[in-house]
């Protein structure tokens, strides 16, 4: 880990001084994990509030504004309600898988959060295969969805889970290939290296102009499809049958699925920001020298912009049908992606990047 803030350094030294070496390093890891958990649970809740407010502004109304100023305590109220609900379950479910499924989804999302560089010093886990790790972890979330649908003993949930599983696996391909296009420019999979390249050369979306813009568009489409958000949310659409794979869940387990969807959205937005828009770098290097605070703010602002873009997609477009969704992926996005990679490679070889 490369956290060099003074607070964490003192805690680090203090722990190493009072405990033996191995135990101290494990304690440090546990503390960091708990900090991330707390931070992102709260962040997930506030993303839910943001979604409701943004949806309301698109629809000519105000969002929640009674619970607390500007409705800031609304998700606290919702979270309390979800926590206090009874964990019902139906008769002939497969108990082990039913209880296991939400944990797959939420754990996959939270692991993927650990590799993101929020600032130069704020990165929990900076391995040299960062991008590859991200793509691998996001594939684990699919298992949770399929298990949830299967173990619910409910034909609507099964249909929903099958559709969702197919959708997620297909669109992971496009996400991976469009990430690959940008990795060609940077030459390294490590996330902090990618941001270094962008500091000196400008944001990657400007460096590789035409293929990078195409890659960004494909990434946004595939990213929204991967997280089962509209316009690809046939799985959980209310006007179809039931509520998809999480029909039979209630209370805290439902909260896990719900939270995992928003954290997935955050992850997709963060990947887009790191790979295309320069991570925590400020535009034109305005606040270059100051240590960690403005960098985190820049990162958050950019991620929020992308999240609002994804919400804009959700509240404008109708839904696609399942076969149209798969046609879109396999007949349109995949060939375009492959052609784009070739184009990017040709451009790098001919030195036409900026």
């Amino acid at each position: 880990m490369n956290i060099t803030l003074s607070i964490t350094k003192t805690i680090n030294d203090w722990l190493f001084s009072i405990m033996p070496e191995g135990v101290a390093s494990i304690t440090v890891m546990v503390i960091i994990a708990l900090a991330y958990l707390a931070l992102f649970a709260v962040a997930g809740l506030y993303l839910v509030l943001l979604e409701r407010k943004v949806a309301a502004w698109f629809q000519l109304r105000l969002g929640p504004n009674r619970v607390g100023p500007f409705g800031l305590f609304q998700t606290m109220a919702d979270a309390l309600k979800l926590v206090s609900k009874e964990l019902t379950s139906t008769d002939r479910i497969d108990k082990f898988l039913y209880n296991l499924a939400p944990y797959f989804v939420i754990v996959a999302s939270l692991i993927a959060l650990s590799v993101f560089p929020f600032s130069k010093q704020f990165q929990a886990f900076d391995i040299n295969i960062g991008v590859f790790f991200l793509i691998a972890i996001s594939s684990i979330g699919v298992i949770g969805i399929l298990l949830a649908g299967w173990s619910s003993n409910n034909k609507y949930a099964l249909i929903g889970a099958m559709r969702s599983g197919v959708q997620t696996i297909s669109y992971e391909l496009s996400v991976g290939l469009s990430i690959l296009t940008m990795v060609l420019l940077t030459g390294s999979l490590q996330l902090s290296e990618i941001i270094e390249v962008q500091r000196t050369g400008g944001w990657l979306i400007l460096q590789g102009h035409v293929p990078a813009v195409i890659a960004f568009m494909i990434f946004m489409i595939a990213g929204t499809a991967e997280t089962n958000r509209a316009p690809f949310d046939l799985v959980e659409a209310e006007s179809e049958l039931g509520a998809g794979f999480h029909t039979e869940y209630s209370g805290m387990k439902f909260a896990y699925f719900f939270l995992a969807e928003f954290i997935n959205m955050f992850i997709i937005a963060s990947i887009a920001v790191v790979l295309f828009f320069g991570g925590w770098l400020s535009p034109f290097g305005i606040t270059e020298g100051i240590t960690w605070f403005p960098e985190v703010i820049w990162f958050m602002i950019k991620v929020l912009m992308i999240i609002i873009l994804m919400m804009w997609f959700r509240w404008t477009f109708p839904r696609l049908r399942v076969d149209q969704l798969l046609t879109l992926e396999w007949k349109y996005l995949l060939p375009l992606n492959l052609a784009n990679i070739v184009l990017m490679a040709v451009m790098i070889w001919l030195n036409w990047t900026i």
Partner: protein
Amino acid sequence: MEQIVNNSFKTQEYFVNMGPQHPAAHGVLRLLLTIDGEIIKNVEPDLGYIHRSIEKMCERDSYQQIVHLTDRMDYLSSHINNEAVCLVVENALELEVSERVKVIRTIISELTRLASHQLWWGVMGMDVGALTTYFYAFRDRELINDIFEETCGARLTMNYNIPGGLMFDIHPNFVKRTKEFIAHFKKKLPEYDRLLTGNIIFQKRTKGVGVLTKEDAISFGVSGPVGRGSGFANDVRKYHPYSAYDRVEFNEALFTEGDSFARYRVRIMEMWESMSIIEQLIDDIPEGDYLTPTKAVIKLPKGEYYQKVETARGELGVYINSTGTKNPYRLKFRSPGFSNLSVLNHISKGGKIADLVATMASFDFVIPDIDR
């Protein structure tokens, strides 16, 4: 060999209930679907959840009291329903209403049609997944509700037409508000087109979905925009004109493809035509009485009478069989939704469930109209 493969992969059909309470059904309609994987094999509607025996109640009420029950049948075109009953009674009594009444009735009917189509547009967008269209439609519909509330006093169940004319005269602000509304809505309707009609996702969801051929439309007896989307020219306002429809000029919206997108475009075009009808009539409403007095107790002469009008859903027919007393002996409503619903099974076979939702949205059912 092929037989073995087919047998081992044989899938089983199962029943799914799109039950009476459903976020996408437009009312309490129960559909029993037999589906095989994702393909629909059979759709069977199960009606009667909101049957209130309106026709039986009409046998007990006098003719002025029947009108307020028709408000609640197809509640989105309540003025047009009222007008149907009033026209039957006036034709049977051979009562001439003044020109002012005819023109006002036409204007109000067209405003009602606009309001109904606005709500349909919002709900259609919501059913296929674009959830913001609902709010835009209701924003515009509130203006029409305000016009009605100022004149009649109510927003949904108006009871403004009575046999002989109108219950009271229109409010002095009526003409001004209607003109403002037309000016406002003319700018908003192209926005609807940009948001939903031209959208490629929406077109892919509705083109080629739920195709109804013209021969089937005629043989099943569909009417209204559903029939006009298949090429069956059946606009009652053009071929059997009533009230002031014979003195306005408007085009009939007719498309030939017969799929959900054609039905959608029929209704959008009808909204434009309604606005043009209102514009032709709003400026010179003739002076006159708003009510031709009838006796306090209306008794129709013996015989059978029928009148059809064009509601927002299709052709509504009112049949009265009277034996000379002050209550009708038998009153029957030929409701447009009932005949339109009968065609649903025929055109949904072989499609997917998502197609069924889009088809039902394009048919624009209001279940109290079917169940009465």
